[in-house]
């Protein structure tokens, strides 16, 4: 049993999207495809699965257990799904049926794929859930389970199909550090149980957890390959080195600056959401030049706290006082989804002009900031959805900086971006703090990031709660 990929190349109408790549995947030894958005790693996985977007063609050979998949008819390839090749969905809570109990979603695989009787399916799926530590969760619906638990339900369903080859696409997207470790351990256990495991990720920490072999991809080509963790300990290619250095845990710590005038003071803050107390009796002050991080697990009220400080939300108890010297629009915000900050139909340049008109700003100020934030003037003619996430986030920063904010609230502003882009945006934020003596409030689920940048770290939330 093995997957052999031999000189696999992918072509589109604009040329080569993946230059010839070869590798062998054996049961029990995971293979990690490491790279950023647009590096071709997802295309490679799609070619193995047989779900390349229309218009793209694959050449070379993909041999699974002696059968060349590329030579097979689409219908015959689809027949392999679930039984021989399975794909663990990205963001499993979105892939599960929200109106179906967890156990039923696993049972139906046994019943429909393997044609087992209802009683037998029930028994098998109960055992499966048990083994994944979900003994009590079978009767619950996905929305009653945490993100990590949902991921395990999806894994149980994928497992039930019994495929020898398991493909996981960005399995840790949006998970905090603790959940990422759990997901990594689960996947490794799959490999150790004798499955072939192919994992696609930009998360260096996950690669380290999984072990096995890694292929590093950049711009449609494999640039480095080798066993883990050796490859990460001694990277040969410059890009691999940068990718590893982009892990927040390896960032140099920002030097704390002396605190200036206070900007917002909060006292005795309490906020409840959905009948549960997010936090209570919280005192917090933010002053000029300070970098404050709010860290903690998903759903713990991090964003709510930031919004309270900005006055976008009212506390259930306690008070938030804004210093008198702060300008009316002196508190600004960057969003987790960069698109969330922009009018979807409006060209970026036009939006910028409106902002300048609204506040009587000098157009030269924006012109000076563009190169500073590495933004090409040509981007001004585009709409928000037509630029990359990193570019749009930098554009959001530019807009905020034009208003000379006293405090900038970065709400998970880099969590959807590739590691190198994340590092770049955070560095720009750090420079802005140093140059303008503004305060920065960072909300993040990555403890390492919080510790690297902030002088003051607030941790929210305790135990695991439903829904990540």
């Amino acid at each position, binding site marked *: 049993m093995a997957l052999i990929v031999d000189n696999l190349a992918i072509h589109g109408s604009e040329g080569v999207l993946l230059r010839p790549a070869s590798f062998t995947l054996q049961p029990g030894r995971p293979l990690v495809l490491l790279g950023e958005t647009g590096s071709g790693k997802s295309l490679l996985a799609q070619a193995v699965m047989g779900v390349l977007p229309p218009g793209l063609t694959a050449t070379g050979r993909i041999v699974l257990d002696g059968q060349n998949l590329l030579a097979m008819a689409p219908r015959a390839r689809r027949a392999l799904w679930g039984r021989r090749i399975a794909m663990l969905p990205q963001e499993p809570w979105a892939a599960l049926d929200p109106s179906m109990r967890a156990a039923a979603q696993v049972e139906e695989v046994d019943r429909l794929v393997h044609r087992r009787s209802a009683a037998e399916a029930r028994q098998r799926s109960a055992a499966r859930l048990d083994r994944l530590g979900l003994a009590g969760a079978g009767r619950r619906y996905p929305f009653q389970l945490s993100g990590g638990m949902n991921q395990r339900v999806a894994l149980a369903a994928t497992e039930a199909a019994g495929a020898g080859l398991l493909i996981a696409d960005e399995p840790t997207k949006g998970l905090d550090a603790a959940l990422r470790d759990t997901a990594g351990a689960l996947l490794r256990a799959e490999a150790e149980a004798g499955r072939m495991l192919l994992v696609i990720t930009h998360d260096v920490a996950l690669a380290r957890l999984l072990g096995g072999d890694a292929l590093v991809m950049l711009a449609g080509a494999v640039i480095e390959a080798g066993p883990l963790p050796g490859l990460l300990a001694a990277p040969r290619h410059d890009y691999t080195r940068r990718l590893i250095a982009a892990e927040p845990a390896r960032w140099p710590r920002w030097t704390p600056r002396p605190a200036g005038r206070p900007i917002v003071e909060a006292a005795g803050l309490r906020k409840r959401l959905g009948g549960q107390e997010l936090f209570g009796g919280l005192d917090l002050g933010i002053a000029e030049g300070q970098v404050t991080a709010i860290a903690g697990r998903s759903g713990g009220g991090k964003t709510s706290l930031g919004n309270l400080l*900005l006055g*976008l939300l009212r506390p259930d108890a306690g008070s938030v006082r804004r210093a008198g010297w702060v300008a*009316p*629009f002196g*508190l*600004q*915000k960057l*969003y987790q*989804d960069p698109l*969330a*900050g*922009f*009018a*979807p*139909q*409006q060209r970026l340049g036009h939006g910028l002009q*409106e*902002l300048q008109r*609204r*506040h009587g700003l000098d157009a030269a100020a924006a012109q000076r900031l563009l190169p500073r934030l590495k933004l090409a003037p040509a981007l001004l003619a585009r709409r928000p959805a037509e630029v990359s996430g990193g570019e749009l986030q930098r554009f959001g920063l530019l*807009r*905020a900086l034009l*208003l000379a904010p006293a405090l900038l609230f970065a709400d998970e502003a880099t969590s959807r971006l590739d590691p190198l882009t994340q590092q770049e945006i955070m560095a720009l934020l750090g420079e802005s703090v140093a140059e303008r003596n503004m305060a920065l409030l960072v909300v993040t689920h990555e403890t390492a990031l919080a510790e690297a940048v902030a002088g003051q770290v607030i941790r929210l939330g305790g135990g695991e709660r439903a829904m990540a």
Partner: protein
Amino acid sequence: MIRLRKKRLLGAGLLAAVAGFALLGPLHGIDPLRQDLSAALQPPGAAHPLGTDHLGRDLLARLAAGARLSFGFALLAALVSAGTGTLLGLLAALRGGWAERLLLGLADAVQALPALLLVVLVTAFAPGEFLPLYLGVALALWVDFFRIARNTAASVLARPQVEAARLLGFGPGHLLRRHLWPEVAPLVATLFAFAAGTAVTTVAALAFIGVGARPPVPEWGSMMTELLPYYAEAPLALLLPALLIFLTVLGLHLLAGRERG
């Protein structure tokens, strides 16, 4: 998508045909009110291309005049109700508070009454006149526009895009132009076509039961009332106004279909 475009083309074609009929009808130069009892209930012929009614009036001239009345009326009533309803809906979503509650209550109250009854009530103040009829129909139709505009606007206002715009210092004018209007406008346009169709049938139905347009005014609904007793002798004469109503409303509804996303 292509099928949808074809449907809309067909709808536009139907409306253009009805409009062309309304505009070209008078060209053949017969007064829609001129009676000629010696030529009553004639089948289509050289002198009267579509025949005559029970008073010998030319049907082509009357149907064309009716088209102008019904069509113009429907557009006007839909326009007034769309304008009022959309404006109030946006206002309610933006202002919130007591203004929103008041308007919502008003909308509920209007919708609690059957639309036809409402129009009849308003028309009762001045029987046979057209202005109360416009008002009555508009009064029944604005609620749909109000609800669509208010609910869409409320969901848009809850988006982070709006929060971001407010943080950057933009006021309601900007929110309206950049965030609310692009979302609300296509829905209002669709609803407008449906509302115009409803206005056509409402006025015809009212005229048929003797409210609103009255003989001898050439209106499709009142023409049907007049011609009903002569159904056996001249079925075509009764069928024609009904067919025109059908084609007009069908055209409007086909036009209202639009691509999603």
